């Protein structure tokens, strides 16, 4: 997969980013969102384009340690930033992140489209310390919609990891 969004008309910006620990160079038009740069430029299609308006959370990635909606971030404004996507949650040897394993254990998805965003949001939530109760998890996961309605199992998966 080429490391850019070809073709390249004049006026493209060069934006260095670190993505899942690896340095990458984007060559993008100013109106390229971080989501489009990840999916179409870098081939990291784990982050999903659901609503493309910051309402569904399927595009959630962890940007400089904070979860954000990648569909509303202009990549050109994030030069030098570190991005963590669902592709970067597992260890290099393929060992799943504890929350990924808990999603499997608790059957925390049905169609799976929202799952990358749920995982990134859940990992950030655990790091933030907002998993103290079911109510707290539900409130702090409110930016991730699941149309299949797997919410009870998503909450169970997060609670299991939080309780360790």
């Amino acid at each position, binding site marked *: 997969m080429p490391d850019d969004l070809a073709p390249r008309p004049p006026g493209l910006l060069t934006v260095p980013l670190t993505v899942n620990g690896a340095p990458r160079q984007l060559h993008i038009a*100013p109106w390229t969102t971080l989501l489009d740069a990840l999916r179409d430029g870098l081939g990291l299609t784990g982050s999903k384009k659901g609503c493309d308006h*910051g309402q569904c959370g399927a595009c959630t990635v962890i940007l400089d340690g904070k979860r*954000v*909606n990648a569909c509303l971030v*202009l990549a050109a404004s994030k030069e030098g930033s570190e991005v963590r996507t669902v592709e970067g949650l597992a260890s290099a040897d393929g060992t799943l992140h504890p929350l990924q394993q808990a999603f499997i254990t608790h059957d925390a998805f049905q169609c799976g489209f929202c799952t990358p965003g749920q995982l990134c*949001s859940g990992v950030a939530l655990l790091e933030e310390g*907002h998993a103290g109760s079911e109510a*707290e998890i539900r409130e*702090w996961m409110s*930016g991730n919609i699941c149309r299949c309605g797997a919410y009870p199992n998503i909450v169970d998966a997060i609670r299991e990891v939080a309780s360790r």
Partner: protein
Amino acid sequence: MRPFTFSRPEAPALAIAAKTAQARFLAGGTNLVDLMKYDVERPPALLDLGRIEALRGIAEGGGTLRIGALATNADTAAHPLVRRHAPLLADAILAGATPQLRNMATMGGNLLQRTRCHYFYDRQTPCNKREPGTGCPAIGGVNRIHAILGASPSCIATHPSDMCVALAALEAVVVVQGPEGERRIPVADFHRLPGDEPWRDTTLGERELITAVEIPAWDTGDHRTYLKLRDRLSYAFALISVAAAVTLEGGRIAKARLALGGVAHKPWRLAEAEALLEGRAPEDAAFAAAAAALLAGAQGQGGNDFKIELARRAIPRALHQAVAGTPQSHVEKAIR
């Protein structure tokens, strides 16, 4: 999204020098980028403020809390100085949006947030705010979320922010910088009513930049609440919200601040309503009088008539919470 030029000025003066009437400053982007995708905003140039360190930071000095325009909503709500000196602001911020959006959205951007009126967003319909002179289909249309106070025959949109309702109650000041220098705008004068120029949301000049928000420190402790009533338990705009804070002395209300969200083109606050509380015992009669004063002249549009009664009941409820020192939790949703 339409093409635009993109630059990253490194100082406020450079950003202001590059600003034109049509260009837009970019902060968190949560509202601006979204509106550009809907083709409602069509700036030819974006000036990204992200490199301007002077716009960051939260500090307290001389009894004033100063929050940089680029401080994110998440960082502001979590900051120890904010939680101590303006806890009502933290409450209001946490009642809004989602963790992802709060990690991106900024103080300055939230102040400049545009209405969520469906017609404003829908380019297939007329809208006096989006295209002056085309009409307002919300009047006589689907207007469940629209204004009950301060509306005009040309626009009945509401301001959607939770944060700004707390800023109104806390008598915040918006610090702005422009070609003529610095200006300090009381938040009450920052947002405006639609009148016959509904395309103007605020009194900010076309080349002015918000640099900070200043709030007089008021350590209310738990004697405050942000009560937000909405269609879902989380992640929905307010149908009605009430920001209330009190100081009690000798069994009476020494100081009261009260503002409504979801009801008008700006946060709705009246000093007369607060005066009806100050010096009084914290009882139902005083609360009802304050609610009546704050809602004087309220006018429904058909679909939103219910908001008048909802507000009339929500105001005393919020004042009870503030007096009792039981601020509304936005995790445990039960209303106490």
